[in-house]
């Protein structure tokens, strides 16, 4: 086996390193092993990208205890869903909403859909997105003490919310 760092000499030093809970092995020649820095670390290498994704996601936290109920539409039990990780129908997402929400938050980036939506779900979705956006603007306006602007935004939000319900 060739040394991983210089790829010239035979690797004679075999090291184990624990990075981020993952055991990684390194095979180096004596010369390279004696130098303190490890070969190109992807940890450091990709560190600069962290900002792009808004930080490292939290680790999976403990999940809630299983509830003993079934989906009224397809009959799938929560136990069954937990065991297989598969739901039985669209309604399961409503039935198991309370249990599923924190799980989704943990395994996914968030628990609110930000992407494409069917045209048929259209106007409601558009208003919802718009409201979310206006609310952000509103809190910014309040923060910057632009009260006239804030009042205008608040009225817009109210109007949109009234139309939604």
């Amino acid at each position, binding site marked *: 086996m060739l040394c991983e760092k210089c790829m010239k000499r035979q690797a004679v030093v075999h090291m184990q390193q624990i990075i981020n809970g993952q055991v*990684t092995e390194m095979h180096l020649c004596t010369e390279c092993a004696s130098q303190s820095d490890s070969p190109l670390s992807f940890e450091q290498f*990709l560190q600069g990208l962290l900002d792009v994704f808004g930080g490292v996601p939290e680790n999976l936290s403990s999940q809630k205890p299983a509830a003993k109920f079934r989906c009224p539409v397809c009959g799938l039990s929560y136990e069954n869903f937990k065991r297989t990780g598969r739901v039985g129908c669209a309604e399961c997402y409503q039935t198991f909403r309370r249990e599923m929400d924190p799980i989704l938050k943990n395994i*996914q980036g968030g628990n609110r859909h930000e*992407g494409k939506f069917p045209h048929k779900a259209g106007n409601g979705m558009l208003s919802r997105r718009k409201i979310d956006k206006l609310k952000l603007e509103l809190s910014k306006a309040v923060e910057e003490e632009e009260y006239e602007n804030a009042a205008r935004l608040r009225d817009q939000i109210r109007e949109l919310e009234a139309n939604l319900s």
Partner: protein
Amino acid sequence: MKVWYTDEIVDATPVISSRVRLARNIKKYPFLVVISPEQSKLLVEEVETALGSHFTPISLAGKNDIEKRGMLERHIVSPEFLKINKPKGLMLQSDERICVMVNEEDHIRIQTISPGDGIDTAWDTANKVDDLLEESIQYAFDKDYGYLTSCPTNAGTGLRASFMVHLPMTERTGNIRGLLPAVSKFGMTLRGIYGEGTEPLGHIYQVSNQVTLGKSEEDIVNGLKTITSQIIDNENKLREKAMSSIRLEMEDQFFRAYGTLTHARKLSGKEAMELLSAVRLGYLTQTLNVPKPGKTLYEIMMSIQPGSLQSAAGRELDENERDVFRASYLRGMFKK
């Protein structure tokens, strides 16, 4: 358009291909674990009608196991799809760039492939197929969770975007071992060529997003591009470094691999993939100055997998026969 893997761009850079998969379900039918065979039949008919004349339905019933395996090796179907024991449908376009699986883990799996770095095209195409289906189909959709899927890990966008990348230097230098934990930090994953749990063959990996909810499709695709470009930059740097510091050793490997491919009488799949990987690198660095084979290297790599090989032979072959047939197929490919 020509079949994606015949485009020379698949051999031109470390990026072999770009893929997009969209998972969708129809509101009125139960999902895979609950759906009955009768409902499955209706589902398949409904999707075939919705896609209309744009696609050719492929009958799986008429295919034997060898042919099915070949389709798996060409990334037309997923291993899960072949295992499902309920009525299912498959719609394919002749250039193999778009395929729709019906009654896979989700009712509908739209899959698009583009040669080389074509992720935007792949997403654009999948998006259009989705729009076409939506004209006549009511999807299972929730305002918070987006497109609802069998497995909540796909909910939201239902999008899996991926790059197939060739990383010989990253693997050889051991950099690959640090890559997986780093990539997973960004909600992405790195796996072998034929998906989860498969051993990487010929130093080919698939980088894809894990997270599907809470980000828009554009953000997911852009995130994947950013990560992949870092991986590729690093691979390129390692390659340049090796080509300047141990050029002769590198060239020696390329020519030895070429020599074996053109003369060996028996080759295992694993060995052949290693050799083809070396030859790919040889062409990429423009040091292996021998004529290129009549097909792209990636097409050859798929053709020497067990299913495709036996399809070409027209019969079942045991392992030993396969190794002999594979060597002879490869000699033929590289013959001037």
